[in-house]
């Protein structure tokens, strides 16, 4: 994958309409040279993973401010394993208590960001993760 930009699928699973953060992050990733597929609102874990598969994304980013993060992150992570995307990064952000972030990390979910975090820190995190986790299909 060297040379081609990092590809990120960004989506909002469930019913949450708070898309300010997801849009700011999407634009920040594009400005940083990544390719972003922005799926928008009212996605399901199935639709997000299907898009990631079709786009051959390196990263899936979920935004959840509705309190339903445990349901959505767990299901997306499980579907990623099932569809052969287990080696890709699942990250995201929202109103997610530290305790829940720890539970999700144990299930293979990456770092999660919250209010006040600098979007540039998300860029740095994704770049570093990709460097440290070369894809298994990389030539």
């Amino acid at each position, binding site marked *: 994958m060297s040379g081609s930009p990092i590809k990120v699928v960004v989506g909002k699973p469930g*019913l949450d309409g*708070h898309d*300010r953060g997801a849009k700011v992050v999407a634009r920040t990733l594009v400005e940083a040279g990544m390719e972003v597929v922005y799926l928008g*609102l009212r996605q399901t874990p199935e639709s997000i993973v299907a898009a990631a598969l079709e786009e051959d994304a390196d990263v899936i980013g979920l935004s959840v401010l*509705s309190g339903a993060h445990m349901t959505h992150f767990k299901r997306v992570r499980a579907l990623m394993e099932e569809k052969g995307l287990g080696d890709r990064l699942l990250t995201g952000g929202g109103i997610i208590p530290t305790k829940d972030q720890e539970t999700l990390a144990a299930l293979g979910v990456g770092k999660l960001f*919250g209010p*006040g975090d600098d979007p540039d820190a998300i860029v740095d995190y994704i770049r570093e993760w990709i460097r440290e986790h070369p894809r298994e299909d990389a030539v």
Partner: protein
Amino acid sequence: MAQGTTPIESPETEPGRDFTTVSGREVKPVYSEADIAPDDLGANLPLPGEYPYTRGIHPSMYRGKLWTMRQFAGMGTAEQTNERFRFLLSRGQTGLSTAFDNPTLYGWDSDHPLSEGEVGKTGVAMDSLQDMERLFDSIPLDQVSTSMTINAPAAWIFTMFLANAERRGIPFEKLRGTLQNDILKEYIAQKEWIFPPAPHMRIITDLFSFCAEHVPQWNTISISGYHIREAGATAAQELAFTLQDGFTYVEHALAAGMSIDDFAPRLSFFFNSHLDFFEEIAKLRAARRIWARHMKERYGAKNPRSWLCRFHVQTAGCSLTAQQPEVNIVRTALEALAGVLGGCQSLHTNSMDEALALPSDKAVEIALRTQQVIAFESGAANVADPLGGSYFIERLTRDLEDEAEAYFAQIEAMGGMIQAIEKGFPQQELTRAAYEYQRALSDKRKIIVGVNEFVNENEELLIPILEIDESVERDQIAAVKKLRETRDNIAVSRELDALERAARTHANLVPHMLDCSRAYATEGEITQTLIKVFGEFREQSFF
């Protein structure tokens, strides 16, 4: 601009400091007579209670009546929220405000497959009249005013509220409160819609008409800038898009044959109070002046009550930080004071923990106490519009008014607000503003204490955090399934069929929704019935 400017150079400026407002507006070191038009302190600035109400809607403002202290509350089941309501009333709150969960806001039942994980999380779960009965159990609905924050399915949640009042023998004429019912800002900012705009606008107009006849003390809509601001808008954009939405509702009701003074006195507004103290006060003053002028001069309203921009204010959720959450008490106090000095009719103060979770009892009590300190200790409630006549405030008020008028002209040129929304215009304006604000934070041109400056690296979270138990969803699903087995399903089908037939005509739909609610039809059943006729809205995604 007719005004000149104060001829003061800025001789000394600390390097690296930013002197723009939270909306990015340049402000000068000092303001004087040279910054305002000659009449802006005279003929253009009558006393509070006088048209165009720049200085407030009542002559004596809070001496006559304090603002209503109304904390937005809702979580888990109807019983849990009922308990929170009674807790707040026992602590001196003077009105109720209901937060519904996401499935309810979208018109879905708790057992809809896509409701999974969302039931009771960010508000109370509401499926039918049965939940409404439990939500307001033992609360005197003829004495306490009740606000309900719901939009796309507002009309059929409201008919559940009416059906509950009816069962308790409370006449509709005695009910006081507010239904948010503002679909346009959903397309712009909050994104909780069901149908395309036209059928939603029809149902809103139906509700104006029904309430004018049957529920005369009810505020039929709360035209909301709050969510537009939270989604990233500047103060001027919030002001302009909200009032333009208001004009759009007025024009639809007029087109449906209502006369302006029959519905305009029951229109109400809802604004954000963000951190930039003076700009927020000016925005609220400008809102009153613009609305009064348009209602009187453009739409020909004769009843002075139709001219009044009456509004609720909520402090800015987006200004709260997850870092050092106790500092949010200070932010909220400043924002609340701006709301009061801006002349609000009711006020919600955010709790310090809302960047982390729904508020705990402790956090919400401090938030309410903040309002009480402003009302009873600070002296701010003793004098109407105490900042009126300040060169800076009057100049800002005028500038915000001019900026809003420029947006009105731009939106009218697109064919109106609905066309502008369909083009994505307001959505793109505020997405851009949100990105620019975030850049200002990343570059440290703007400072947020404890977030990008004065950071406490070893911070420990020392406040309680509310959790919603997973059993809420299971219990709520079981309750709605049981309801469907025990109610009179023949009556439910009959009323839903009648609603569907009416939706295919031009009949007012509210009486049919009331019949469905009385029969314990669920929210989701009513929604699905209407989707058969009206279809669903799909958004074009962009960032």
